[in-house]
């Protein structure tokens, strides 16, 4: 048995008898690195940045379209640059992460009840994916037609 006792220091001005001095641990700025669930949470939240980045790209593309075929071609060319591809590659990862977490968490916020019992989460999440597939197919069809 090795209970390591620290030497007790007598000179601690802070404690006054009968007035307990609570120890308040500080939350580190890097708290979200400490635990996988927290990291996952932060990544989920960060995904919004990539959503915004893509919206900006979309807006720029629209501006290029408005500015005429040459401007549009120039923009298309920029999209092929390694830097643009890198950004968009990362964005795709995050955006998919957003989609999946969003759909999976939806049931938690909905609590659809059937005969008094909460429906199992999978039953509520599944339709989201179906809609997602349909919408994606529709957009692709419109654009490629």
């Amino acid at each position: 048995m090795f209970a390591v006792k620290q030497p007790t220091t007598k000179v601690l001005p802070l404690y006054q008898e009968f007035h307990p001095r609570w120890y308040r641990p500080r939350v580190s700025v890097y708290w979200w690195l400490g635990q996988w669930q927290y990291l996952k949470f932060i990544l989920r939240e960060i995904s919004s940045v990539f959503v915004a980045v893509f919206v900006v790209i979309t807006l720029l593309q629209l501006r290029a379209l408005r500015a005429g075929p040459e401007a549009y071609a120039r923009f298309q060319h920029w999209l092929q640059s390694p830097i643009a591809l890198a950004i968009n590659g990362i964005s795709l990862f995050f955006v998919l992460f957003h989609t999946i977490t969003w759909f999976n968490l939806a049931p938690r916020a909905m609590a659809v009840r059937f005969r008094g019992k909460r429906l199992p989460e999978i039953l509520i999440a599944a339709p989201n994916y179906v809609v997602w597939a349909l919408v994606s197919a529709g957009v692709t069809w419109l654009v490629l037609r």
Partner: protein
Amino acid sequence: MDASSHDVLLVGGGGAGLRAAIAAAEVNPKLSIAVVSKVYPMRSHTVSAEGGAAGVVKGDDSLDEHAYDTISGGDWLCDQDAVEAFVKEAPQELLQLERWGCPWSREPDGHIAVRAFGGMKRRRTWFAADKTGFHMLHTLFQTTLKFDPITRYDEWFVTKLLVDDGRVDGVVAIELMSGKIQAITAKAVILCTGGCGRVFPFTTNANIKNGDGMALAYRAGASLKDMEFVQYHPTGLPFTGILITEAARAEGGYLLNKDGYRYLQDYNLGKPQPNPVMRSMELGPRDRLSQAFVMEDQKGRTLATPYGSVVHLDLRHLGEKIINSKLPFVRELCLKYQNLDPVKELIPVRPVVHYMMGGVSTDMNGATPLAGLYAAGEVACVSINGANRLGSNSLSECLVFGARAGKAAALYAAEQKAADDKAMAQANDERKRLEAQFLHKQGGRERVATIREQMQKAIEKSAGIYREETSLAEGANKLFELQERYQDIVLDDRSRTFNTELEGALELGFMLDVAESIVQCALHRTESRGAHQRTDFPARDDENFLAHSLVFRKPDGSSRVEYLPVKVTRWAPGERVYGEQAPESPQQIPQAVPAGRAG
């Protein structure tokens, strides 16, 4: 020294304490009410009650039947006037709890649902799934939050009652967080500190059930009543002592010996039927079932485990659906603490100390002979439980007599003057005592844990399910020795802040007193009745013992036992019959007799 002052002070924030606090606040909103509790109120042990609370609500039931079940279940040691008041008020109290939001389980049409319970002839046990006590306690606690006159002292440990001139003036308590020892004075004090299961080694009771209130009252000069009646519950999980609620049997569980045989049929408890029959077999009363276990064990028909011998509780035939809907907590406990699934496996169980029938002797309003001192809940003995409490009566008891004591104390307090300085002086002495005996003590050799263990062993050996003269006398001697050694206790922890070792030592002191009172009362009662079974006196003796034992503390610290006749109003003592011969309805019950005699 600091002090605070109130009109009514509750020691204990369990079911009884909180109910009393609300009652007092409702009687007189001008009163200042304090709830002192050594744990946050919602941690009180009421939280772990599973099965339910009895109260007549359904048309096929009657108050008389509830009274009769209670009285016969208590082997005629109940005061019948108290029982009649109890059964009458229980439904109202349970209804009041419904009005405060308690999530009682319901019938499909929205009415309260009731279930069968051991020793009860009719279905009359209200339940909230199998977490009845939990829901009741949280409902009560949350409801108290809306009463401004109720001040809480959470995590304050009461060490002593302040008594001056035959009148109780308040308490001395330690604020655990700071270690401050101070007086809280009050015009009336209600003890609601719960039972004392931790006196025994194997119990369903939580760590906080140390008989504090019993010892506090005993030391202050009040008497304890019927302390020899300790209830064993027949179905506890080995090792942990976790309770498998009676509801498991009420829903149709079987008790099997090692050969898979429903052994209760051999002990005058009826014939086995596939479905539960009230007041029969597995639904017999707890004392009989626990005694049957011991017999079965002596015949070598139980299974040996490292934690004592066991029989099996079989729920498998109920099926997963019923188990999940009616007994979810049972399943959870088995999975979490015993690592088995009752849907597919047999549950090992053995009798376990569960409830204290005895306690601080009070009248029907919770008042003790000491002016200003009241008690309610498991700590008290109003005498509705007699020699054996019926399952689901005690939660209702907490409500009925909690409310009664709260009201009575509020009325009493309104008429009293505040305590004077003498209380302060006493509180100061108590602080000095605690410091000298524990915090500043020089020397000492004994550890809290050692003495506690030896006390538990001693009492189990002498005052277990079956008792006899020699072992009880040995137990008494051992306890005397332990009391001496207790004076020589030394603590590792000398600090003020949240000193749980000091708390443990004080609780041990309380438990030693309670243990002694149990053994003394058991020694003096030379008959067998309900939970008190003497192998050397196997018969019930109404001639001499249709009476409550009262144990007093003598100035030298030893005890004195007296007897008080049982109050009999309408039901003459009869044979306790379970199984097929159980009387069908109260009409067959012998009616009206003169008050009982006592030895």
